[in-house]
């Protein structure tokens, strides 16, 4: 073996040794690329849909915009030009796609402001509401789901599942309206304890402002948590039940582990894998619930904005929000796809 041959040999050895490992870990990048490409295609499809869906509307958007007021022909023409409605459909489409890709969704009919500005203005408020609710209903759902599965068939489980199913069948907006009547307006001797809507009383600063927002946050969050935790509960429960007959749990018990340790250390971490996917999908799916809850509580977020846009209808705004809502769901689904193989490496292979 000559000295100058050694490096090549070592390199070669390394390559062969690393070969299978490299190939195995490269499954994830390929999987990742596939999922990201899929998401990109879905987003494009949403974009195209959002354009054509809102061109289905019979009648003239300009007439809708002027709300039946007497408008001269010149003014109508000016509006048409302002919103680009005088161009042929294919030009409108290419313009729309080109602008949308740079984040420009046109001008809102009712606010006379760029759609993007209205959306970025409302987004943090929605994130505050959904974020808080999400943390709470996920924690509650996993906690109750685990307990339910571990003591399945017992009274506690039946009450838990029954309640979750019942709350799941209740329209969120109705629950919100009832909470407003009972806890904000006050009923009988019960005084109103929470604000009826909005996000702040105004005029507060510093810590008092935080408290004020938190006070306004209570009822919308309670409503969202009540209608959303049930699904997490049911999925966690059935995942854990599937896991409970497994041999490794019998082994763990046979070596004398305490019951709660078997549950916490062995069963729950494995059973939670499907729940992780659900958690992400939930984040996107909550969109619909948020629209209703924000409408009921006049929360100044995306959902409230969507409702305002629907009643006009303010097409550019509806269109922009539709895209944002759909994009949120697609992003969350993709994130779920991306995180899952990191938790369960069998998926990417």
């Amino acid at each position, binding site marked *: 073996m000559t000295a100058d041959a050694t490096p090549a040999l070592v390199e070669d050895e390394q390559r062969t040794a690393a070969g299978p490992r490299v190939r195995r870990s490269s499954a994830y990048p390929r999987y990742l690329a596939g999922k990201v490409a899929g998401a990109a295609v*879905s987003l494009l499809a949403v974009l195209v849909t959002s354009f054509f869906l809102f061109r289905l509307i019979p009648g003239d958007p300009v007439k809708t915009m002027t709300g039946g007021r007497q408008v001269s022909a010149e003014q109508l023409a000016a509006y048409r030009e302002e919103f680009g409605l005088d161009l042929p459909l294919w030009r409108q489409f290419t313009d729309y796609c080109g602008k949308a890709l740079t984040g420009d969704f046109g001008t809102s009919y009712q606010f006379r402001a760029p759609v993007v500005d209205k959306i970025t203005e409302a987004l943090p408020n929605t994130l505050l509401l959904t974020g808080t609710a999400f943390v709470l209903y996920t924690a509650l759902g996993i906690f109750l789901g685990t307990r339910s599965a571990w003591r399945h068939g017992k009274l506690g489980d039946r009450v838990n599942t029954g309640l979750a199913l*019942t709350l799941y069948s209740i329209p969120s907006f*109705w629950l919100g309206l*009832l909470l407003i009547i009972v806890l904000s307006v006050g009923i009988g001797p019960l005084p109103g304890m929470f604000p009826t809507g909005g996000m702040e009383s105004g005029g507060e600063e510093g810590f008092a402002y935080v408290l004020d927002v938190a006070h306004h946050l209570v009822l919308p969050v309670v409503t969202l948590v009540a209608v959303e935790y049930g699904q997490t509960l049911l999925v966690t429960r059935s995942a854990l039940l599937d896991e409970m007959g497994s041999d490794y749990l019998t082994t763990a018990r046979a070596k004398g582990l305490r019951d709660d340790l078997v549950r916490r250390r062995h069963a729950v971490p494995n059973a939670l894998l499907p729940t992780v996917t659900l958690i992400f999908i939930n984040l996107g799916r909550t969109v*619909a619930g948020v629209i209703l809850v924000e409408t009921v509580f006049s929360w100044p977020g995306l959902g409230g904005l969507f409702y305002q846009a629907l009643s006009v209808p303010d097409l550019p705004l509806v269109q922009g929000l539709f895209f944002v*809502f759909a994009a949120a769901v697609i992003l969350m689904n993709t994130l779920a796809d991306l995180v899952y193989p990191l938790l369960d490496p069998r998926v990417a292979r």
Partner: protein
Amino acid sequence: MTTSTGTAPGPRALARQRRRASVARFWRQYRSERAGLYGLTALSLCALLALFAPLFVGSDVSSVTDAPGRPMQSPSAEFPLGTDQFGRDLLGLVIWGSRVSLLVGLLAAVLSVAIGTLIGVTAGHFKGWYATVMMRITDWFLVMPTLVLAIALATVMSRSLTTTVVAIGVTTWPTTARLVRAQTLAVETRPYIERAQALGGGHWHIMSRHVLPNVMPLVLAQTTLIISSAILAEATLAFLGLGDPTVVSWGGLLQDAREAGAVSAGDWWYLVPPGIAIAVVALAFTLCGRAVESVLNPRLGVSR
């Protein structure tokens, strides 16, 4: 060979007998699901009430001009659920509203399951590019937020019951399509499909005579579950003001209540009954659906 001789039943009678036996077996197992029985009872009551509503309430119950009471009366002996802002009897309105809510829920679910079954069976039967395209479309609908899409559809179409039914039906079919396709693929691997093909059975014959009957139970369970979400979706659309404003439905009543200021005035009696009605019917359909599912497929584990 096929003609019946003596006491041996003919093929038709045999098929009927088998079907009767399997229905009886299904019912025996369904009966052991207590929650499913509760759901079924509640549903039967609601269905009877909706069917015979014209006997207790006149069709003029929703008339604004000759309302029997004063506006916004709280519950009393004359009006057990109080009155609305026009002085109309709320009990009558809630009963009358059940007709629209149930009808829209049923129709939307049937439309949704019909689309889903058609696409699922054909995508499972014809493999190749057709299946690929169909499943791509299905996947795309699957990731879309259903209610947001339905709201968008209802916004761009004119306000009517048909719009509501179409908006819900067109957005909720993908889960059914996926389930049905999976089941179709499973059924098509069975030897009797090969036999039918060898005997010259065409695509249509195989799909309608062999695949569909085997997929039907699954479709039934799916329909029951979808009705529940369709009723909730109808209420939601009506509440957002996207339903037909000329008909009375439970969601529409809730929107009326909100617009009439029942919330800030604390007029709870206006809000409670329609909401409870929605919740009871949605829950009842969910319970039935889960019971049917656990009878047909105990491994599915939804209600364990």
